[in-house]
Structure formats: structure tokens, C-alpha cells
């Protein structure tokens, strides 16, 4: 098992004919993911990378039984692309696009509220279940199939952590980048819930950062509902308040959003904190797993 994506995932690519879209789709196909359709309005009927292109998601979903979508369309049109996928009944939508206006995402959240579609991202590296399916930007070959779930607001920091895990021989069930935006489609809690339920996930790495309260909400969930061990790391402890650290959501405003409070909440909830150096996230997980396994 794994969460969100697996061998049964039939992926549709929105914005497949764009530069980024086609480049990434190639790598996604190379990883072995079943890419069943592409969508670019006005280019229906053509082919790219051996994939049939449709004008609308509805038409593509209808013809190909796609059950997941990954979005590469430019920021100005991305909210519309998310809604299009949800309206077509696609159950999983991974939005890679960075820079979507906040008001567009407010609208997207209102629209998705009563719909069964799960949104990952935007502004995220996507999702990978190693050895099964990659719906994202991550370099496939640093991953190893296994039983540790990874969930993160940051892309490269996740790659760091995953590379460490893999080099220590610790495989991953699924790695989920929820994205660096202020209003992510799925939160830490959403993904922790899935990992908690997933039989193949033994432990979870959670990588947070400053800004917002997603980590505090995660801490509450870990405390109340989580029986699996969690190793956590929070970036930005030395960041100055009031400045946006790259990610739209990574900004300390007023008294909220500081790394210290997030770290304290996660530690109090029973998560094992990786020390302040991200280079030891892997080692921290190894210790936790060794303890479980009685080594």
C-alpha cells in the first residue's frame, strides 16, 4: 500500500504541451507512471510524448478513466484548471503551479468544500509512492520503496531528507509535498490521517517551516490520534519576523508562526525532533526505527 498514488493511478496532465509540463511529463513517464491523457485547450486531437491531448478535462476523463491530475498551467489560469479537474470528478489533483493569487485559492477552497476531490498543493513538488507512481517533480532515483511516509511544505528540504533516508537504507511508502503556499489544498493533518490509516506506513517524517499554524494543528493531531512515530523538523528558527522567506506561507506575522512555538508543540505532542541541522533528519528517523525494532 501507499497513499494518494500507486500502480492504479491513471494520471492526466493539465498543461502537458507547455515547456515545464512536457519536460516533467517525460520524466514522470520514465518513472513508470501511467500517463493516460494530456489537456491543453485548443490542442485536442494532437499527441505529445505518445500521450493523447484533449481540449477539456471532462473529455479526457471520459475517454481515459483518469483518476488523478497533475497541473502545470501558468498561475493566472491554475485556479480554473483545479476547478475544471474537480468538476470533471477527478478525485486527486496535484497542482505544481507556483504564484497563484491568494484570492483565487480562497475561491478554490470554497468551491471544493463540498466536493470529493482532494487537492495537493499548489506550489508543491507533488507526490511519489516509490516504485509505483510519481506525480511530481522529485528526482525519482533518490527514492526507495519502503515504510516511512514523508510530508513536507518544502521541496528541496524533502529531497535532502529522502536522500538521507535512502542512503541509510530506509525506504518510503509515499512522499507528499503539500506546498509552500498560505492556503494549501491539503494540510499536514490531512496527510497524517492518511499515513495513520495506511498499513504500509510505519513512521512519518514531517518537515515544517515558519508561518501559519499548520504544524501546531499537526501537533494536536499527533497527540490525539497518531499511534505511529513521527520525526519532525521545522525550518526558519532564525528567520526575521515580517519577511517572507520565499514561500508565500513562510512569514512570521505578529506573535504567530514562529519556529520555536511549532517545535515546542510538536515535541510536546510526542514527535521526535530532528536537531537544528537538516543533515541529520535521516539519522533521527533511523534511531526511532531502531528503537521500535528493538535494535
Amino acid at each position, binding site marked *: 500500500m501507499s497513499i494518494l498514488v500507486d500502480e492504479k493511478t491513471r494520471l492526466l496532465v493539465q498543461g502537458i504541451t507547455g515547456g515545464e509540463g512536457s519536460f516533467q511529463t517525460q520524466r514522470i513517464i520514465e518513472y513508470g507512471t501511467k500517463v493516460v491523457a494530456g489537456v491543453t485547450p485548443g490542442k485536442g486531437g494532437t499527441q505529445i510524448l505518445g500521450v493523447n491531448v484533449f481540449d477539456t478535462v471532462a473529455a479526457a476523463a471520459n475517454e481515459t478513466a483518469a483518476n488523478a491530475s497533475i497541473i502545470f498551467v501558468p498561475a493566472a489560469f491554475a485556479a480554473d484548471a483545479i476547478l475544471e479537474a474537480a468538476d470533471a470528478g477527478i478525485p486527486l489533483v496535484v497542482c505544481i503551479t507556483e504564484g497563484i493569487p491568494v484570492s483565487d485559492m*480562497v475561491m478554490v477552497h470554497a468551491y471544493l468544500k463540498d466536493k470529493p476531490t482532494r487537492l495537493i498543493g499548489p506550489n508543491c513538488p507533488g507526490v511519489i509512492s516509490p516504485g509505483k507512481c510519481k506525480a511530481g517533480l522529485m528526482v525519482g532515483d*533518490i527514492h526507495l520503496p519502503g515504510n516511512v511516509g514523508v510530508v513536507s511544505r518544502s521541496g*528541496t528540504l524533502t529531497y535532502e531528507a529522502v536522500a538521507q533516508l535512502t542512503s541509510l537504507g530506509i525506504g518510503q511508502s509515499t512522499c507528499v509535498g503539500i506546498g509552500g503556499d498560505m492556503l494549501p489544498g491539503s494540510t499536514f493533518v490531512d496527510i497524517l490521517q492518511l499515513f495513520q490509516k495506511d498499513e504500509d506506513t510505519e513512521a512519518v517524517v514531517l518537515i515544517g517551516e515558519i508561518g501559519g499554524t499548520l504544524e501546531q494543528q499537526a501537533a494536536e493531531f499527533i497527540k490525539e490520534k497518531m499511534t505511529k512515530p513521527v520525526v519532525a523538523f521545522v*525550518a526558519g528558527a532564525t528567520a526575521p519576523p515580517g519577511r517572507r522567506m520565499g514561500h*508565500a506561507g513562510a512569514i512570521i506575522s505578529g*506573535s504567530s508562526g514562529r519556529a520555536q512555538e511549532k517545535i515546542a508543540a510538536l515535541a510536546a505532542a510526542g514527535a521526535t525532533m530532528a536537531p537544528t541541522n*537538516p543533515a541529520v533528519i535521516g539519522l533521527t528517523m533511523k534511531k526511532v526505527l531502531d528503537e521500535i525494532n528493538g535494535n
Partner: protein
Amino acid sequence: MKIHEYQAKSLLSEFGIPVPQGGVAATAAEARKIASELGGKVVVKAQVHAGGRGKAGGMKVASTPEEAAKLTEQMIGTRLVTHQTPPEGVPVSKVLVEKALNVEREFYLSIVVDSITRMPVMIASEAGGTDIEETALVNPERILRAYIDPASGFQAFQGRNLAYRMNLNPAQLRPATSVMTNLYRLFQAKDCSLAEINPLVVTAEGELLALDAKLDFDDNALFRHSDIEQLHDPEQEDPIEARAHELGVKNYVKLDGNIGCLVNGAGLAMAVIDTITYAGGSPANFLDIGAINNTDRVVGAFRVFTADPSVKAILVNIFGGIARIDVIARGIVQAHEQMNIQLPLIINAAGTNVDEGKRILAEANIDFIAATDCYDAARKAVAAAKGSGGRQKPQASGNKRGKI
């Protein structure tokens, strides 16, 4: 994006929110003219992108047009230092000359998007004015909130509920509701990230006005608001940040240390500056180079480092996923070709095309210190920044110095 108070007030006014009479002046003569047209006492307010002006001398009352001119002359051309500015302050190029009001009560009003409910929220308080942040900490029950359902927008009843709980008197229920409704219209129409009126005042005459206002805009939405984009005042930015943005290095934040950081990914960049601090050093910046497939941003970043006299060492930390190490390496080579870079260079790189990157750096004969991981890189950068003293090349110490 931030704008000036006078620009914010002009937008408020356009959306039907009352503001004091006044005008903006760049010279003493202009200020004199405005003050004499207004008549009576006026307030001269330095136009800077920072709060805390009152306590810092950026807001003064003038009884005569002559006095207004004099105050304006004193302010224009200076740098104002408040608790919100960097130590060197921000330049004052314009002042807002406004009719002085008989203020009786001061309220607080703002709209932001709430990340938990994922809705805009109207925040209001009876305790407006300069101490609102303290009120939020000490008496959080005095901070009122009304969440705005995007399907229905801000409703008049929400305005009445807030106004009632702010103890506005019955005659002010309707004007206060109107201010809130209009502030939400503005917030929506212009993609604000913050729309704040502080203080919203009631005068002795019973009028309700926005005495000070702050509007910040969602950078990601500026593409559909060219009118707002035009209000941008680069003078108010840190010059090195402004230079970085000009060079296309968007995710750049100036910090006060001496190690220039070039990292890909915001989370990793944050972790790197944390690690430098824990290693006893101090980063000169946060810099997320992003997922790039061209070399210009790398060259731009090096240009920013060399333009910043506080930078004593450069740390490059790249995990090649989307970004390719060969591209970064080519950028570093180009930077060395275009500039005379005498700063010690520490590189921690892994991932996509790392061997090709190494080959490129070796061929170009670039001097650098290789690191085994992020913490190792930080430690070596701290040592190098201390050792280098100035703009000299670092000497090999215990560091594994690589030439590829």
C-alpha cells in the same frame, strides 16, 4: 507590495471611505499651498513604508502654512528611523499634509485572509491606535473577528454586529458598516493581502474617518492590477534587495550577517541560514534561487553578493532535483568570468547532473571549498568568513579544498 499612506487613502476614497482632507507635497512650497488651502491646523506626515512614524518624529502638527512648509523642509530628503525600519532608516521624499481633526475615539479595522478558515476575516477593535499589537497580546477578547464567506461577501449584519460590539453609538452603526463593506470591496477588487485602517476615528463632530491606512497587495495578483503596480516605490526598499529583484533574484531577503547564501528551495534556504547561525556564524541573506534551467539568476546572485560589502564568504547549497547542478556550475563559471570574485566559495551540491557540474567547475578552474553536507558547509563558511577578514581568498586550513 506596499504603497504609501497617501496612495492608500486615495484608494479608500475611491471606494467611498471618508478620509481627512489633504494633499501630498514633495516641496515646502507645495506643503505651504496645501496647508493654506486647508486652513487651520494641519498635520505633516512623512510618507514612508513603515509604521511607528509618530514616535520617530515623522508626524508633526503645524498651526500655520509657514510652519507646515518648515516641517516639510525638515523632513524631505532625510531618512526616517522607526522601530519597523532597518537601522539606517528609509528615505522621505514626500509628505502628506492633512487637516487636523478633533479625534474623540480611535478604532482598529483590518482585513486579511485567515489561513485556518481559508476565508477573509474582518478584524476590528474598540482599542485602535498605536497600541493595537499590545491589545492583541494582553486583551485578546477586545480583538473582534468576522469571517467573510466568499459566496456571500461581507454582509451588512456583520458590520452592525462588529460596530455594536465596538460600542459605537447607534448613529454610527450605519457609517461604520459602510466603511467595512467598502473596505472589503477594495480588498477584493484590488487583491489586497492587508487592508488596514488604524486608527479609524470618530471626531468631536461625530464624523467617522480613516485617519491612517495601510494597504499591502498580493504580489502574485499584480499581473491583473497594473494600476496598483504603478504605485510601487523602489526607493523604500533596501537597495541591495531592490538590486536583487532587478536582477531577477526574486526570493531574496537581506539579513545582517556576512555569509552570502545561494540555495535552491525556500525550505532548504531557511534551514541553511538556521544552520549557519547554529554554527556560530551569521547569514547575509536568504536566497532561494528556485528551480532554474538558465544561468542568469546564478550570475545575478553573485552580482548581489559582490555588491554587498558585508558579504565575506559565499555558500552555495544545491540539492539538484528540478534544478540541475550543471546549470548552477555554469552560472558560477559565468559569474567568475564577468566579475572579479575574491570571496571564499563553499559548495555543497548533490543530485541531478552533479558529475557534469563538477567537471564544469574543474574545467573552468574555479577555486572552492567542498562540503559533505549542509552543516559541514555552514561550519566551513563561518570559518572562511572569519578568516577572510576582507576580500581576500581564503587559505587552505583544515578544509578539504577542491579544484575540479
